[in-house]
C-alpha cells in the first residue's frame, strides 16, 4: 500500500482505502494523492451518521416495515429426508426474542478433504445421526408369562453401526440398572431384579424408556441429509450439537455451523454469536426477497450482545437493562414495573427518550441533545 494512503489508516475504513488504492492512476504526484486523501476524509465524515441521530428508531422502522410483508409459513426441504425449516416472520421473532430453544435447529456440516468428494457420503452421514435402540432392533416385546423384556436385533443394522449385541447390552445396563441382562445370540433378555418391577405397567414403562437408549452417533442430531453444494458434499442435519460435531475427525471445524445462535455463543464466544445472529436475520430477509440495509441488523445484534451474553429484545432481555422505570414500563407489563419501582424507591433521571415523550418534554435526540449554558457575568449589560 502507498505510504501516504497508509497514513490514513486511523481516519478511513479499510474498504475505502482499498478502493482508493485500486482506482488511483499509477503515476500520481504526492501532493495530488494527499489532496485526494484529504477530500476523502471530508466526504467520509459527511456520510457518517450525525451525532444525536436516533439510529435505533430508524432501524426499528426499517426492519419493521418489510417485516409486515413476510410470510408466516415454514417451508419444506425437498429430498429423501423431509425437513422443516422455520423461515419468515416466525424465525425473525425467534432470533430477536433470543429464544434458547429454537423450533427447528439445523446444522450445516462441512467435511474435510478427501471426505468432501462425496465418496461414502451416506456412511458419513449415518455416523453423525443419533442412533437409539429402536433404530437397530427388529422387535421388542414383553413376555407376559415370565414378566421379562425381550429385544431382538436386526443383524444388518448391527453391522451398519458396527456394534454387537453384547456392547449394546452394556449400554442398556447403564440406563436400567435394576435389570439382569442376558445375551442370547441376537436376542437380549431383560429380567427385573426386584419384585416391585414385576408388573406389566412397570415393564411397559421400561420398554418405552429403553427404546430411546443412545447407541451411536451424535446426540441431538435427529436427521441427516447429504447435499451437494457447489463442488463439494456437505451434510445438513435436523437437530444441532455443534460442540460434539466439531470434534469429529472428518468434519471441517472452520466452516461447520448451526442456526442456533445461543449454541454458537456458548461454543465459540459472544462475538461469533453476534456474527451468527446477523447472518441468520439477514438470510431470512434475503430469502423473502426484501431489502434491508445490513447496518440496521448489525445495530440490533450489537445491542443484543452488549452484555457479554445474547439477550433477546424482551422485557426480560435488553429492555430489563434500561435504567429508566418509565421506559421499562412503556414496553410490557407497566403496572408490575411501576409497583416494583415504587416499593424500592427507584429514581428516574429522565435521561432517555421514552420517558421524556411520556412527560411531554424535549427528547434527547438530535437538537434536543444539546443544552444551553450561560456563564454568569459573561453577558454584557446594555
Amino acid at each position: 500500500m502507498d505510504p501516504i494512503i497508509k497514513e490514513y489508516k486511523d481516519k478511513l475504513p479499510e474498504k475505502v482505502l482499498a478502493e482508493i488504492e485500486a482506482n488511483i492512476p499509477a503515476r500520481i504526484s504526492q501532493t495530488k494523492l494527499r489532496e485526494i486523501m484529504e477530500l476523502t476524509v471530508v466526504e467520509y465524515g459527511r456520510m457518517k451518521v450525525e451525532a444525536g441521530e436516533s439510529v435505533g428508531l430508524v432501524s426499528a422502522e426499517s426492519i419493521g416495515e418489510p417485516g409486515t410483508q413476510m410470510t408466516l409459513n415454514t417451508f419444506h426441504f425437498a429430498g429423501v429426508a423431509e425437513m422443516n425449516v422455520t423461515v419468515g416472520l416466525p424465525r425473525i421473532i425467534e432470533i430477536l426474542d433470543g429464544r434458547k430453544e429454537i423450533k427447528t435447529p439445523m446444522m450445516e456440516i462441512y467435511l474435510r478433504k478427501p471426505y468432501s468428494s462425496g465418496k461414502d457420503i451416506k456412511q458419513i452421514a449415518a455416523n453423525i445421526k443419533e442412533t437409539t435402540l429402536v433404530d437397530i432392533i427388529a422387535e421388542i416385546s414383553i413376555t407376559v408369562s415370565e414378566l421379562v423384556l425381550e429385544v431382538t436385533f436386526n443383524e444388518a443394522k448391527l453391522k451398519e453401526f458396527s456394534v454387537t449385541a453384547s456392547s449394546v447390552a452394556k449400554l442398556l445396563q447403564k440406563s436400567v440398572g435394576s435389570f439382569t441382562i442376558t445375551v442370547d445370540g441376537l436376542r437380549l433378555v431383560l429380567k427385573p431384579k426386584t419384585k416391585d418391577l414385576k408388573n406389566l405397567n412397570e415393564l411397559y414403562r421400561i420398554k418405552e424408556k429403553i427404546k430411546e437408549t443412545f447407541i451411536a452417533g451424535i446426540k441431538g442430531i435427529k436427521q441427516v441429509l447429504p447435499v451437494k453444494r457447489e463442488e463439494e458434499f456437505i451434510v445438513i442435519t435436523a437437530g444441532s450439537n455443534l460442540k460434539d460435531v466439531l470434534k469429529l475427525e472428518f468434519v471441517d471445524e472452520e466452516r461447520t455451523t448451526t442456526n442456533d445462535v445461543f449454541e454458537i455463543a456458548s461454543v465459540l464466544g459472544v462475538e461469533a454469536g453476534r456474527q451468527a445472529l446477523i447472518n441468520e436475520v439477514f438470510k431470512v430477509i434475503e430469502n423473502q426477497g426484501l431489502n434491508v440495509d445490513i447496518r440496521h441488523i448489525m445495530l440490533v445484534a450489537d445491542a443484543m450482545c452488549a452484555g457479554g451474553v445474547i439477550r433477546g429484545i424482551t422485557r426480560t432481555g435488553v429492555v430489563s437493562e434500561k435504567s429508566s422505570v418509565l421506559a421499562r414500563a412503556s414496553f410490557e407489563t407497566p403496572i408490575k414495573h411501576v409497583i416494583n419501582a415504587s416499593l424500592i424507591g427507584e429514581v428516574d433521571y429522565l435521561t432517555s427518550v421514552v420517558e421524556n415523550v411520556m412527560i411531554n418534554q424535549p427528547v434527547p435526540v438530535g437538537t434536543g441533545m444539546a443544552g444551553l449554558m450561560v456563564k454568569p457575568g459573561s453577558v454584557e449589560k446594555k
Partner: protein
Amino acid sequence: MVINDMAKDVDLAKHYLVPKHSVLSDTEKAKILEHYRITPKELPKIAKKDAGIAHLEVKEGDVIKIVRNSPTAGKSVFYRVVN
C-alpha cells in the same frame, strides 16, 4: 482455545465466525478510554469464561480488542471489557 478431549485438536479461533481477539496493554487501554472519554464500565462486556478469549490470559477489567470482518467497512475494531 483447544479442546483436548477429542479425536483431533480443534482450534476454535480459526472458525469463520470468530473474529480476532487480543488483550490491550494498560497504556493502550488508557488511550482508548481517553479517546472515547469513557470509563471501562461503559464499554460492552465479555464474560471471563467466553470461548472467544479462552486462549488468552485475561483478568477482570481487561479490555479486549476485537477486529471484526465487516461487510460495510472491511475491518472494524470493537472493544469489550472483561467482567
